[in-house]
């Protein structure tokens, strides 16, 4: 079941910003591997699954990609649309689906807080985070961290 909230990227980015603020004071308890992570996983699966068709990659970048899940792109692109987008804006691989990145780009244009993040370069996904809690990985700092060879 999908909820049509993605039509309101501006609302979603504010919701993300607010949740982050509310969770911040509790970050010392947000550690991977325990029962707290299990609760987060269940909640994230339910909420992000329904809104974003989330694939639980555990390395969430939604606010940098126009509140659109890049894992729903068949090529798992993390840095914008591939060169195969059809003239009608549909996906190269799934012709009846609108290109995920076309939607992401349109949505990011109305996002005032995180919209510009769309132009940055995102690191490759960390495979070992799959099925963990993206919120916890966000607070421990492991998610979206650049690979060692990219760091200054």
């Amino acid at each position: 079941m999908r909820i049509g909230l993605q039509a309101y990227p501006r609302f979603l980015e504010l919701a993300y910003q607010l949740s982050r603020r509310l969770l911040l004071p509790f970050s010392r308890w947000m550690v991977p591997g325990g029962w707290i992570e299990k609760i987060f996983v269940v909640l994230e699966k339910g909420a992000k699954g329904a809104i974003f068709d989330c694939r639980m990659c555990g390395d969430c970048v939604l606010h940098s990609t126009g509140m659109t899940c890049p894992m729903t792109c068949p090529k798992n692109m993390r840095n914008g649309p591939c060169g195969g987008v059809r003239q009608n804006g549909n996906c190269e691989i799934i012709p009846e689906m609108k290109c995920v990145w076309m939607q992401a780009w349109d949505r990011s244009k109305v996002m005032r807080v995180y919209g510009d993040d769309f132009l940055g370069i995102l690191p490759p996904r960390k495979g070992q985070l799959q099925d963990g809690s993206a919120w916890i990985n966000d607070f421990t700092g492991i998610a979206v961290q650049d690979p060692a060879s990219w760091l200054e």
Partner: protein
Amino acid sequence: MIPTSRLERVLKSGRFAVTGELNPPDSADPESVFERALVLAEVCDGINATDASGAHVHMSSVGVCALLTRAGYEPVMQVSCRDRNRIALQGDLLGAAAMGVRNVLCLTGDGVETGDHPDAKPVFDLDSISLLKTARSMCDRSRFLSGRQLEVAPRFFLGAASNPFVPPFDFRPLRLAKKVEAGAEFIQTQYCFDVPRLEKFMRTVRDLGLAEKVYILVGVGPLRSARAGEWIRNNVPGVHIPDAVISRLKGVPPEKQVEEGKRLCVEIIQQVRETPGVCGVHVMAYRQEELVAEIIDEAGLLPRGGYGSMGADQGRRLARMSTQPKTL
């Protein structure tokens, strides 16, 4: 000191560069690679070896490139993220560098669905941009993605692809900017059949200051017939062919369509050569290497060594910029 690439030197001198595409054979015989290379080498500054393009199996690009460097040719090795994860990709880059490959084109790759093994597992561990940045850090920082130190770093002239002809049109120049930031030094575009669209794209590219930072080679190629054009338009991902092109081909009798397709390609080359910021062309013709040679000849690009629309200046200006330390 590892010598730099010939393609890089041609571009930095401001000369209008020509690269051609070699379609790897379905054969274990090196002769079939050498035959094709011989034709292309006479007319090109660099020979692209495709990496299972269209997700069809052929001899690997690393294998073709190893043969080409052994015979003294200048390959551009295409590397796609579709079939290999970061471990294999980095290993192949090192192997290629050791075999004398100096030019690498980093691609995401077409989906397996369009190829001859649609049941294959698509990998897409990296995308073209993270592959570029990974290759850049191998060259400039002498490190694998994991941070582990290399004993000797490769030296690559790094390239990427761009497709100005598919939506979202307003994002395409910004995606090019990302690729430049990730470390691309040259760009080869998808097939251009729509010159006004290219000019629009190039205008934004110039406004963003990207024409000063990266050498852009425009992809071109002949259509064999109106029917072939229609087939490509419907079946090859990312190739945009305007109606006007198809109807122009339809306007001549079938036996003259090959000639007309070639003429159209030559005209497009001549037009893009006049577009400011375009530093060369990349000529592609699936398994028709002789045709590539004829087109380059008829477009007036022989003997090699002529300058682009901005003359020697542009190359030198870019060369100055790119000798400054690269930031990641």
